[in-house]
């Protein structure tokens, strides 16, 4: 049973997530830079490319906010703020090693509920500016949600089923000796895909995709844009990070302390996602929906069935 974390962890959590988000965005910028301008020749050049997201953040801080006619500013703002908020709240049940800010008996449900806030967030952000393109982006996220959410929930449920508990700490404890990824590979892969979809990032950038001129984020400028897009990176870090306690044994590992293993595993998952993103175009939901429902839903159900049979015969 993991212990409860001290109170200061509550303050450290958002900061740690933000640092992780900046580092991940920096890594992504480094890869983008080498695609755009060839690989960096000096360390200095690589460093400059890696801090590009920070420079962009500073630029957004001083940029004028954009106003649109007859905008619903209250709901639009709410949507923007909800993105990082959902990420940090979901991060509260994320164990560092064996300690989380909070480890309620329904931690997994809490995590999923916070992720579902992202649905509201993107739709509201798309609705707010009273612009056709951003509304299209908002609706695209609902379509995306319909595609990824069911397989995603089955994947999470499978991990909970294997541990016979919805407490994240118990799920980590149940993986002592054998990580869930070994006997639930399908659930793990589906979880990673839906983690990207949840963070509407990479191949699942469809709600913000360029063919709708930026979709839900079209009309966002200045601080609004920074909070929304920064929140998206937070969401990516949190959803990717949650695959560690769910499938990769959490803080378990030889020699190093638990928190170090969590860090290493989270970094590895994030690197995999950021590097893997380069191999794929944005998936259009009208086509992805078919795969999600015809392949991934049955696949995750079979995986859950397999795990259930194993658990019953233990």
């Amino acid at each position, binding site marked *: 049973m993991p212990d409860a974390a001290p109170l200061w962890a509550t303050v450290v959590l958002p900061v740690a997530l933000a640092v992780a988000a900046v580092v991940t965005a920096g890594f992504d910028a480094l*890869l*983008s830079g080498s*695609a*755009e*301008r*060839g690989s960096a020749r000096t360390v200095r050049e690589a460093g400059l490319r890696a801090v590009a997201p920070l420079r962009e953040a500073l630029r957004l801080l001083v940029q004028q906010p954009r106003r649109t*006619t*007859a905008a619903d500013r209250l709901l639009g703002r709410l949507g923007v703020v909800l993105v990082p908020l959902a990420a940090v709240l979901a991060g509260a049940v994320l164990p560092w090693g064996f300690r989380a800010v909070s480890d309620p008996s329904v931690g997994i449900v809490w995590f999923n509920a916070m992720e579902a806030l992202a649905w509201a967030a993107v739709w509201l952000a798309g609705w707010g500016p009273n612009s*056709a*393109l951003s509304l*299209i982006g908002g609706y695209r996220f609902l379509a995306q949600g319909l595609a990824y959410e069911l397989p995603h929930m089955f994947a999470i449920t499978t991990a909970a089923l294997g541990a016979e508990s919805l407490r994240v700490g118990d799920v980590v404890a149940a993986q002592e000796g054998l990580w869930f990824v070994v006997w639930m590979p399908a659930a793990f892969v589906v979880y990673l895909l839906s983690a990207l979809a949840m963070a509407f990032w990479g*191949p699942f*950038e*469809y709600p913000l*995709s*360029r*063919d*709708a*001129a930026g979709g839900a984020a079209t009309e966002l400028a200045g601080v609004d844009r920074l909070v929304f897009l920064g929140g998206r990176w937070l969401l990516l870090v949190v959803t990717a990070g949650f695959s560690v306690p769910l499938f990769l044994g959490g803080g378990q590992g030889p020699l190093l302390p638990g928190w170090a293993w969590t860090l290493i595993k989270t970094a590895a998952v994030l690197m995999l996602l950021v590097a893997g*993103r*380069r*191999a*794929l*175009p*944005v*998936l*259009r939901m*009208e*086509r992805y929906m078919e795969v999600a429902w015809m392949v991934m839903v049955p696949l995750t159900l079979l995986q859950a069935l397999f795990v259930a049979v194993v658990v019953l015969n233990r």
Partner: protein
Amino acid sequence: MGHMGHMGHEMHTMGQVAGLPMAERGDDRDELRLDQLHVPIGPALSNWPAGLILRLTLQGDVVQDVAVDHLRVPSVHRLPFWDEPWLRAAQGEKVTRDRAARRRCAAHLDSAGRLLAVVGWDDVAARCRRLRDEVLSGAPREGVDGDLRRTVRRVGRSRPLRWSIAGLGELSADRARAVGVTGPALAADGDAYNRLLMWMSEVERGLDGLDDARPLAPDDRTGPRGRVDGPRPPSQALLDVLPELLTGAEFACARIIVASLDPDLDELALASVSGAAHA
């Protein structure tokens, strides 16, 4: 708050909200009466043919009607960049084959980069743009050969890409010929994916011509988007074919279809230029 009061006042006038007209209803293709939303795309967007304006009439996410429009093409005394080698040759100047090959390669890389960016494959799009610049700046063939072939292969091999855009903007060779399309869009004889592959294969073929110092063959008047000596500039035909490809398509496909044809509005100034050349 003053803004809100103003808004409330506007609500009372018929068919207007905040000074904007309300959506009107019209029959859709299934004979339902649905709200029509008029959404213009262009003239300035990233990865969009500069100056092109599409006035879409949307019902739900289906493009019900489209009007193709563009900004006035400035009549500066400069040849359209991508067609320059062929036009100069038509005017009787001596143009080497490698110059034309470079321009064609770069033009297709430019188009492919735009399409891939619209499809959301940023990595390969960025590589295409970088290679375009290298080819244009006269990089030696050995310098770009490996990179270029790798990129072409990556595009050709990607199943997700094919799965994502296959079947969009189907344009048969017969139909293309009837409208007067002459370039790769005619040769591709198919959908957006076929057109992308056609660009890529022309890029790969063009590699062999990068060091060819012989003068351009007198009958080679086919620029990156089609024959420059025809009655109309090649991009005009691409624009003409847009309405039939877009009508009935979903909004999500509209920009992919446009990017897969990639009309170059600079060429519209060509009519007068080639007229001058013939005279």
